[in-house]
């Protein structure tokens, strides 16, 4: 697939912009702070409904404006889809598909798929578990859009349950009262049901993703084995509940979650938060026998981050259509070897959008369309 047109209204620094795009490799070149990343961020937002840079939507709206609008025309095989997203930081976003309003914004997820590489990816390896969970869930939703609903049900059940734990645990009188405990049982069941579904999705995803990560890391790093033994990159899902060795049975997962909640009930009431469920899980990245976090060198961490994104790209591509590949300011961060590896993927992809401060950062023979970005103006060069 590829994006053939991008229109922005009050998005970030752009009051309005209309840009024609095409298949091939498009490079957006310009000094820092001119609005290159804003362009690719807008396209990625249409695909994922979140930004790779910020957790809230307010910064996405131009200062002084109430909302921003991003419209993309997507071509898949020979079919055209126009996705329009209205970003309302104060309220719910609105979406239109081919000029018709949809009931839920999440219905347009999956029409456009993107994989973005950015300097923030290093956080996948070095940062907190939250970043790795977001990586998994975002990929899960791109692959199977129905998980957007699962995820939102889970988040809501979690908020309801935390709210109950806080009030039931905090109240001196009535703590452990029969009514409060009976209600907690009900929310345990809701959380376990949505949690098992999310967990099953993540486990299946990790199983599919893991071999791609191992092979891409070997390819990207091409290094000699580490001194502390082995150089194979692997990933494993770590959960607060014991996971089944093989197969994913949602009923068994729900039962395991319920059993763990029962075991942790006192602690949960004491702390007033849910301690059991996929919101506490992590993705363990290892190099040989050692965890990547804390042990991998800077270069190894970069290779791992690239391997994760490349694996995500391969997995989405395996569904039959290339996702749009976005490389936001990454070439400058990479050494020659990793640059070459990334360039070889770029050459075989239907559409690639690259941003860089100077043209020399991007392998020149790759680029098919040049755009200059300066003071919020995008011109074709």
């Amino acid at each position, binding site marked *: 697939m590829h994006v053939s047109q991008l229109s922005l209204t009050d998005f970030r620094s752009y009051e309005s912009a209309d840009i024609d795009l095409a298949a091939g490799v498009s490079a957006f070149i310009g000094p820092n702070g001119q609005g290159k990343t804003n362009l690719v961020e807008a396209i990625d937002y249409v695909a994922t409904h979140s930004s790779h840079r910020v957790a809230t939507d307010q910064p996405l709206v131009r200062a002084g404006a109430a909302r921003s609008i991003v419209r993309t025309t997507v071509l898949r095989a020979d079919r055209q889809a126009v996705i329009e997203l209205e970003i309302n930081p104060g309220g719910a976003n609105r979406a239109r598909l081919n000029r018709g309003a949809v009931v839920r914004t999440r219905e347009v997820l999956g029409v456009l798929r993107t994989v973005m590489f950015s300097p923030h990816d290093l956080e996948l390896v070095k940062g907190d578990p939250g970043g790795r969970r977001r990586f998994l869930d975002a990929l899960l939703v791109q692959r199977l859009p*129905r998980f957007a609903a699962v995820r939102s049900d889970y988040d809501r059940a979690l908020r309801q349950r935390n709210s*109950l734990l806080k009030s039931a645990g905090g109240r001196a009188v009535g703590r452990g009262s029969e009514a409060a405990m009976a209600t907690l049982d009900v929310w345990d069941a809701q959380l376990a049901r949505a949690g098992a579904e999310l967990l099953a999705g993540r486990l299946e995803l990790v199983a599919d993703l893991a071999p791609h990560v191992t092979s891409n890391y070997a390819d990207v790093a091409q290094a000699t084995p580490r001194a502390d033994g082995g150089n194979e990159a692997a990933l494993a899902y770590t959960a607060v509940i014991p996971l089944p060795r093989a197969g994913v049975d949602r009923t068994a997962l729900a039962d395991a979650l319920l059993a763990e909640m029962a075991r942790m009930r006192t602690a949960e009431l004491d702390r007033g938060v849910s301690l059991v469920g996929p919101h506490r899980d992590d993705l363990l990245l290892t190099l040989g026998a050692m965890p990547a976090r804390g042990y991998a060198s800077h270069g190894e961490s970069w290779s791992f981050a690239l391997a994760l994104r490349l694996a995500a790209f391969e997995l989405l591509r395996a569904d039959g259509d290339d996702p749009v590949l976005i490389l936001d300011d990454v070439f400058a961060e990479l050494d020659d070897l990793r640059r070459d590896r990334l360039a070889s993927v770029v050459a075989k992809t239907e559409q690639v959008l690259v941003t860089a401060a100077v043209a020399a950062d991007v392998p020149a023979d790759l680029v098919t369309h040049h755009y200059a970005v300066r003071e919020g103006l995008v011109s074709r060069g």
Partner: protein
Amino acid sequence: MVQDLIDELGRLPGVGPKSAQRIAFHLLSTDPTDVRRLAGVLMEVKDRVRFCVTCGNVAEEEQCRICRDPRRDLTVLCVVEESKDVIAIERTREFRGRYHVLGGAISPIEGIGPDELRIRELMQRLADDTVTEVILATDPNLEGEATATYLTRMLRPLGLRVTRLASGLPVGGDLEYADEVTLGRAFEGRRSVDD
């Protein structure tokens, strides 16, 4: 003055600032007797309508119209969240039993637990064994499901028949346009066509 009216109208559910403005200017150009009638009805509703002592539905007397109706089946009780759900089910003319309005759904975020709902009243109604079936018709969302689960656990020991409204495909719709969650539920709730 006009702005006050627009602000008041804008506070109503489902009325945005633009609609509020339109309604306000419509009222300004309307015949005074019509406006007076509307104002009268608004006041009268507030003064006279109260909640049925039996089921919690809106009523103009001690009991609502449905609870007073002798033709209603006393053995079946349909539990709903709000009075407006009663109106929706009544429109179908399919259900001939009586209702119990909870006044909401369990939602700890909003501070609503079982004690804030009319669950104690429900248990009292069921105490004399007249009712043999309870239909749980709470909303098919997270809070409605939680409420139905809670009620199921409370009612099971009473030995009644407890049923839950089916979730699934809208009638007259196209399968291909159904969202995955609805379709998934429809699969879960599929039934045999043998008989």
